């Protein structure tokens, strides 16, 4: 048997108990010849075939049907019934899984060994049925175990999980911590990388000018002119004045601001470039 069609398997599972399988519809006796005048849709028989989980399952069914213990499996009789089942399948041209044929061979072998006279000394351990009985029992206990598991209370059938509505949660998602070191290393790396594809080296960062450029941009507006002198502060001294001046020049160069002087020596006014949005 190849992989069973899951849908067919579901159908058979729904049909539940094996004792009530349609197999019994074949008059309690397995059919050896299919009545020619009776049309049995092959699908229906496939359902029967699917009802068995394999040759061991089929054998168990045949044994249980006669209210027999697995331990006293009547080999001759069971073999004959098993073969009729296989024959019927073949007659109906239903593809029979290899496992069923292997089992048929095994049954035939046991049957033939049982017909031979047994040497008395080996009687205890050498029942030719032993291996088959072991396998049948082994299969049967897991068949039972499967049924037991199926009967366990399970979620969605016997148990339902609870799910209360949540109160309003203040979810303050913590922000990542950053070490200054990581930031500096990132800068070092990015500069090292940029050196690889630019021709010049940047040795020195003119931080104070760049920072002052930001400060100036913050202070001024695009709508009103800001007095040039208000950008300088006495406390910063000469150095501060130079830095501010350089920042202003740089901003002009980058066309970020406009410097306006109405006439020579008049006060200079600063305005963010007209195109700026603010």
């Amino acid at each position: 048997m190849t992989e069973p069609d899951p849908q067919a398997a579901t159908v058979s599972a729904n049909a539940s108990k094996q004792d009530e399988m349609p197999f019994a519809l074949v008059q309690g006796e397995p059919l050896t010849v299919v009545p020619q005048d009776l049309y049995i849709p092959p699908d229906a028989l496939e359902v029967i075939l699917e009802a068995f989980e394999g040759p061991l399952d089929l054998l168990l069914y045949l044994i249980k049907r006669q209210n027999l213990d697995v331990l006293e499996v009547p080999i001759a009789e069971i073999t004959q019934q098993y073969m009729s089942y296989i024959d019927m399948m073949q007659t109906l041209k239903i593809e029979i899984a290899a496992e069923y044929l292997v089992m048929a061979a095994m049954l035939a072998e046991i049957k033939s060994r049982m017909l031979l006279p047994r040497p008395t000394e080996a009687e205890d351990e050498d029942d030719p049925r032993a291996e088959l009985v072991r396998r049948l029992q082994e299969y049967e206990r897991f068949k039972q175990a499967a049924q037991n598991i199926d009967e366990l209370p399970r979620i969605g059938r016997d148990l339902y999980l609870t799910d209360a509505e949540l109160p309003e949660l203040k979810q303050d998602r913590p922000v990542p911590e950053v070490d200054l070191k990581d930031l500096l290393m990132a800068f070092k790396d990015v500069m090292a990388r940029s050196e690889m594809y630019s021709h010049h080296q940047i040795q020195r960062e003119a931080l104070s000018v760049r920072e002052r450029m930001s400060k100036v941009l913050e202070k001024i507006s695009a709508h009103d002119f800001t007095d040039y002198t208000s950008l300088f502060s006495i406390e910063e001294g000469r150095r501060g004045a130079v830095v501010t001046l350089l920042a202003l020049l740089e901003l002009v160069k980058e066309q970020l601001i406009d410097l306006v002087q109405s006439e020579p020596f008049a006060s200079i006014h600063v305005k963010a470039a007209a195109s700026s949005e603010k």
Partner: protein
Amino acid sequence: MTLEKLKNILEAILLAADKPMNVQHLDAIFSGDEDRPTRDEIRKALHELSDDYAERGFELSQVASGFRIQVKQDYAQWVGRLWEEKPARYTRALLETMSLIAYRQPITRGEIEEVRGVSVSSNIIRTLQEREWIKVLGHKDVPGKPALYGTSREFLDYFNLKSLDELPTLAEIKDLDKAYPELALDDEEESDAPSEQVAEMEDSAEAEAVADEIETELDDDADAGTSSASGV
């Protein structure tokens, strides 16, 4: 914090959580609190909650991954009416495969096929894996290096089990030579009787050993203090 308050917080957490919570998880929630309860207090509170729920429509249940609040089975029939869909049914092939993995883990697909006498479809293995009921524990050191399957905590949770120990006992195997006709095989009570459980063959002893192993691994609540696998 008072026991009453702790109980209320715990039930609020269990009702809100979408998965079972063990004592360790619950304990961690209080970390940083000034009046942080001890684990023993948490256990005591859970115990009292369980008692409180005795007469209610829901219960505190302990499963493999921890505690959860669930609807009592008695009321499942009404609750089930909330959804039009019928609960899923599982095919015998799937259940048999599942039970072999549960009782005989770690087990290969080939070993499952040997017992069942038929090939195991890849669909079934895939379905079980997708449901996260089984997982690959490793690979057997034989040609082809087949995967060794075992059950997961989700499997136990789904079937309301704390550990594999709680699975129904496997029927025993009888010796052909000691066959007595009156010992009907299909008498379930007979085979489940505890006295006979001891006489079980090596197979099930093996399964129990595996179960023990897994139990130890899962057992983070019982002795939360001790070392072993508490990372769960």
